């Protein structure tokens, strides 16, 4: 069974159709990339999966469960974690605190127990702390543990955001343009990390990315979107050489009046 099934999803904003009858499925353990020119609807698709946008038509299932029945805050509970295109970290908290927020879905203690800091809460906190430390080790964030986000450089923030998503212990990780704004070196690191996330953390990765080099290096399958429609799906090489994809990116004589 596919992990994520997107079936005929259509999203309209006012009169503008952002996504039209988009269908695809992501298999467990896959690294699945979504590419397309600006305004193709890639981020909208992510926002549909995170339940920020309501699709007008279509079905959305995660591990067999109907996503459209869930509130936005319940999506994380299924094990879907995400990052944001423009980095949405908790600016005034430390790296550690940010990652600990990722543990939110694993909390068990009741609110009165938290106010009185019952022994069970202490045990839970230690466990969260240990789990977060694994993520810190995994992403080499040790030197920045207690640093406030507001003072961190851009590339590091992107890493912290991935870390926060990993602290959820996701079954599927949504990365929204993970390489944008990164240096060549950081982008190279990212390439290994994405593979590691799949191989060592066991998370399926779904990403939106512009950098075709990164996409072809890591992804198993690629989906190309243009004007809200799926125009190609397949291996990175196949999609890159697909005539419709070339047309969407470069334009053809027919497209330019």
């Amino acid at each position, binding site marked *: 069974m596919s992990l994520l099934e997107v079936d005929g999803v259509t999203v309209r904003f006012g009169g503008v159709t952002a996504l039209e009858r988009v269908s695809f499925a992501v298999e467990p353990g896959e690294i699945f990339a979504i590419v397309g020119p600006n305004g193709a609807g890639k981020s909208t698709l992510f926002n549909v999966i*995170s339940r*920020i946008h309501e699709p007008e038509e279509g079905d959305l299932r995660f591990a067999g469960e109907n996503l459209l029945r869930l*509130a*936005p*805050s*319940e*999506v*994380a*509970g299924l094990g879907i*974690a*995400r990052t*944001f295109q423009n980095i*949405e*970290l*908790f*600016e*005034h*908290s430390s790296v*550690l*605190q940010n990652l*600990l*927020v*990722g*543990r*939110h*879905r694993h*909390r068990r*203690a009741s*609110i009165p127990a*938290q*106010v*009185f*800091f019952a022994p069970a*809460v*202490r045990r839970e*906190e*230690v466990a969260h*702390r*240990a789990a977060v*430390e694994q993520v810190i080790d995994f992403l080499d964030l040790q030197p920045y543990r207690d640093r406030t986000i*507001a003072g961190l450089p851009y590339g590091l923030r992107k890493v912290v955001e991935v870390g*926060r998503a990993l602290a*959820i212990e996701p079954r599927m990780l949504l990365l929204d343009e993970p390489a944008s704004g990164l240096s060549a070196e950081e982008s190279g690191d990212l390439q290994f990390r994405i593979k590691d996330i799949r191989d060592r953390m066991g998370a399926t990765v779904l990403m939106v990315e512009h950098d075709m080099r990164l996409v072809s290096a890591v992804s198993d399958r690629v989906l190309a979107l243009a004007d809200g429609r799926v125009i190609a799906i397949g291996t990175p090489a196949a999609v890159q050489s697909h005539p419709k994809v070339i047309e969407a990116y470069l334009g053809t004589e027919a497209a330019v009046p």
Partner: protein
Amino acid sequence: MRTALKTSYVQDIRLFPDVRRALRYAVLLALAAALPLLLDDFLLGEATNVLIWAIAGMGLMLLTGHAGQASLGHAAFLAVGCYANAILMERAGLPFAASFLAAGVITGLVGVLVAVPALRLHGIYLAIATLALSILTEDIIVLAEPWTGGVIGLVAPDITIAGAEVDRYGSPGLFYWLCLAVALIVTLGYRNVLRTPLGRAFVAIRDSEISAQAMGINVAMTKALAFGLSCMVTGWAGALMGHFFYTFNHEVFTVIISIQLLVMIVIGGLGSIQGAYWGALVVGVIPQAINIARDGAQAAFGGSVLIPGIETGIFMTLLIVFILFEPRGIHGRIEKWRIYVELFPLCRRDMFRRQKSFLKTERMR
């Protein structure tokens, strides 16, 4: 320079990060507990006042400083706590301990009740709604005359705890200790909240609702909870305030009090428990400082120097100075000094420089 060597996760979770800080707070607490032996009745009354303001400040700090929801109407919740406590003692004959607890719970529930419709409002709209609430409170108190005594008001019933009469005038020491105990309990509870998922959820919705939601935090429920807890604490402060003022009517809990409370925590330092205490201290000290200055001026120049509204004038000037030059308040300033001293001489000039930020519209949300 001091480095903290961490050897266990518990170190990040403890109430105090290190022994030195724990000791410092222990000394502070001992000093606070000894105040009735050190001060005369008048100054002890002022210290009690500061404690009550600090409790109210912690209530608002939780909501505004940590959960990021500005309220311009917290005097309304002071009023609810104050009247609920007095009415429960007077009409239902409850002992103070029971009515006090109940007053907090009632105020918390009222807070949630207010929060549920207010949840749809963001930033400035929430501020306006709470401001309107605060304005309405005065009128509602007058209209609810059978319960609240209207413009005549109520007299705070006597408190008896374990056989001892606790009275602001009769036994100011006991009343002070009562307030100190409440302040201590609230502070501990507050600190606990901050080191658990609940507190992290508050900070998360303050800094980015959209990603808090993506982390599985139910934003609406968390806001309602923040309102509930905040109002509960504020209700307790209101109950104590009632006993402190002895008599109270609709003119006590005005919009001005709401604004003063907000201004207080901004001066103290948003986003820190200590900020509530610093702010309360400023509220308590300014009138005394003005009195002393006025006496001095009268002695020097003769005649009576009376400038109406000078308290507010100074208070507001102070606020403007802080917002412009130290947005993190007194607490933030002290922390910077501490870091400077601890790192000496390694502190770089621009270490604390504020980042220039361009504002993208907040209007959209």
